[in-house]
């Protein structure tokens, strides 16, 4: 029983954070918002150089062969810097899913390409209808309860669905080439689809933690320097209590997200509840952080010229991605109120439903 991350895990996250400060600074996001995003490919290359796309890939595929726990802090950093590229979907969702079907030759061939970042994949799921698409997309991973498809980008007709978050390039597949053969069907497809959603939701929750902490940090700094009525607004109890309340929500959401990592590879009601709980708790923390940030910044927080809005919009976007509030809330309500698995103080870390 140990809830602490290893030094290696923290160092890798720290290294990514340093990289992000370089390639995904507020200035970079401003350029992107002003329609001059020339850096997408360059960012992708830098992420690839650090090997981030291969964290969950097998070493035999050129990956690091690490586990979900090693990835969760990276997803958090991707949220903290509001990374535009879908690192999380490719490295955290698609790769581990495809590792379940390496028997399929095209998958075996693709995995090393995905791990190196040469191939770029977008993932759609019934609960994630709008895929955040990488630069120079090469493949789609699409699924429903019946079947999972791996398709070349050219084989899919797409519709662009611009987001209020200019850092997300959303597309929706409009039609696939007729008669595309599914990667998997039946039980295998059902399980793949469930695990895809588990990882998508959990690593989205981790991003929400990161973006929430970023907004809290920005608000605290602003509250220290902005003066009103002759003293820093951060010395007023109302401001203090807003931000302290965010800190509380964030602290406990963090524990829930980290604990849920152990469930993403599993199936069954207890894992579904743990993942949905994580998604809800992290989204709530990010939502509160955003509203409190506006309270603290006043009209200033409402301005395009202040960094805050990059992270606020990411928080709004993540709330609806990989299962929206209703989906995850109904999931927890049905399982808990229906006692789908034993509840109680001795059950905190149980895995099996």
């Amino acid at each position, binding site marked *: 029983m140990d809830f602490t991350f290893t030094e290696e895990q923290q160092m890798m996250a720290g290294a990514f954070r340093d990289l992000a400060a370089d390639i995904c600074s507020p200035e970079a996001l401003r350029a992107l918002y002003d329609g001059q995003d020339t850096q997408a490919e360059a960012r992708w290359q830098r992420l690839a150089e650090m090997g981030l796309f291969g964290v969950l890939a097998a070493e035999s595929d050129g990956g690091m062969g690490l586990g979900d726990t090693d990835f969760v802090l990276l997803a958090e950093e991707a949220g903290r810097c509001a990374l535009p590229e879908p690192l999380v979907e490719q490295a955290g969702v698609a790769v581990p899913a495809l590792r379940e079907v390496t028997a399929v030759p095209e998958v075996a061939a693709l995995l090393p390409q995905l791990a190196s970042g040469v191939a770029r994949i977008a993932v759609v799921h019934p609960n994630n209808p709008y895929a955040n698409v990488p630069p120079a997309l090469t493949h789609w991973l699409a699924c429903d309860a019946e079947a999972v498809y791996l398709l070349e980008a050219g084989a899919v007709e797409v519709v662009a669905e611009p987001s209020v978050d200019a850092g997300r390039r959303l597309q*929706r597949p409009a039609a696939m080439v007729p008669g595309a053969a599914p990667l998997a069907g039946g039980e295998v497809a059902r399980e793949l689809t469930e695990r895809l959603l588990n990882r998508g939701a959990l690593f989205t929750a981790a991003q929400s933690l990161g973006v929430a902490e970023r907004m809290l940090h920005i608000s605290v700094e602003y509250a220290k320097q902005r003066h009103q009525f002759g003293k820093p607004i951060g010395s007023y109890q109302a401001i203090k209590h807003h931000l302290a309340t965010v800190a509380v929500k964030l602290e406990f959401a963090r524990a829930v997200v980290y604990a849920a990592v152990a469930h993403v590879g599993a199936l069954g009601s207890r894992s579904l509840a743990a993942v949905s709980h994580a998604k809800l708790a992290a989204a709530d923390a990010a939502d509160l952080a955003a509203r409190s940030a506006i309270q603290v910044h006043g*009209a200033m927080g*409402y*301005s395009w010229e202040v960094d805050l809005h990059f992270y606020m919009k990411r928080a*709004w976007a993540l709330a609806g991605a990989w299962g929206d509030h209703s989906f995850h*809330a109904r999931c927890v309500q049905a399982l808990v109120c229906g006692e789908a698995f034993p509840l109680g103080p001795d059950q905190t870390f149980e895995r099996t439903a």
Partner: protein
Amino acid sequence: MAVELQFTPEQQRFRAEVRAWMQAHVPATPLKTLESEAGFAQHRQWERTLAAGNWGMITWPAQYGGRGATLIDWLIFEEEYYRANAPLRVNQNGIFLLGPTLMEFGTPEQKARFLPKMASGEEIWAQGWSEPQAGSDLAALRATAVRDGDTYVLRGHKIWSSRAAFADWCFCIFRTEEGSERHRGLSFILVPLRHPGVRVRGIRQIHGEPGFAEIFFEDARVPVANRLGEAGAGWHIAMATAGFERGLMLRSPARFQVAALKLVQLWRHHAEKADPALASAVAQAWMDAQAYALNTYRTASRLMAGGSIGVEASLNKIFWSELDLNLHRTAMSLMGARAELAPGAPDCTDPSWLEGFIFSLAGPVYAGTNEIQRNLIAERLLGLPRG
């Protein structure tokens, strides 16, 4: 017997008249946003149409282009206005804020010069009070107006000025007494925006449009006759204007009742897959909009019986801003994955929800933050000691 909550036959006739006119005149296709130049021009034209129908500001006295209507009539008018989905009022700084202020503090010449063109929508007004270092703490403002014969020479930097990007005139507060502090030595001055030494720069909002502007005064000269009231009376007059802003006119309930009805329809569309708790959020939104409407009529009755608006303004501000935020947050939850889609995205079925949500975020912070309103309530209504 009192608490008689039925409209009189006259009031019902009035409602019917407004409804008929709106049906006949409200543009079928919604106007462009008034935060764009083209949209601003369209909204200016709409104000002319309203004025032509004598609907510009029905509560104003007839001699200024009004109908001398009662507050109840005003509420009925607004109900029909929002029910007809009529355009936003680009003229609101004039008709709700400066207009009443001019009537109370203006000279006959000032009234004659400014009110008719305001009524006709010919001149659109902006408000220039806040400064980078003077937001909630307005008395900290620094912009100066230095007397030079019959003119004032203006220097300073105003910010968060609504409508200013495309408006014609701005009513501002300047420090006219050198070395004066806080509330003293301020004057209320009317300034043309297309004028030498006046530079206006739009501030893009998080939705990307310039909802507000900054105004830079670089030795701009205006006649002393543009000063409203006495020199040094600026704070007193500004507080009166703020009273109008916090009064009943600006945030009439109809807007929220229309939004609540839309939310109910959004719920019905999503009910099958929605978190059942959102049903209670939807019902709460309707109840709150209804409560806000009822309390507005209650306040209107009190005012018409000779009362004056005081700290209720703060109660109203908190209530409508929280109701508006909760209502739009509920809508965003209901829309799920579609909530983030930008206006123009194929799957973005109704862009007004995202725009409304973003607008609602500003509610608790503008026109006096809700924190400040709570302090006012605690001190003025409950009599708690100042901090």
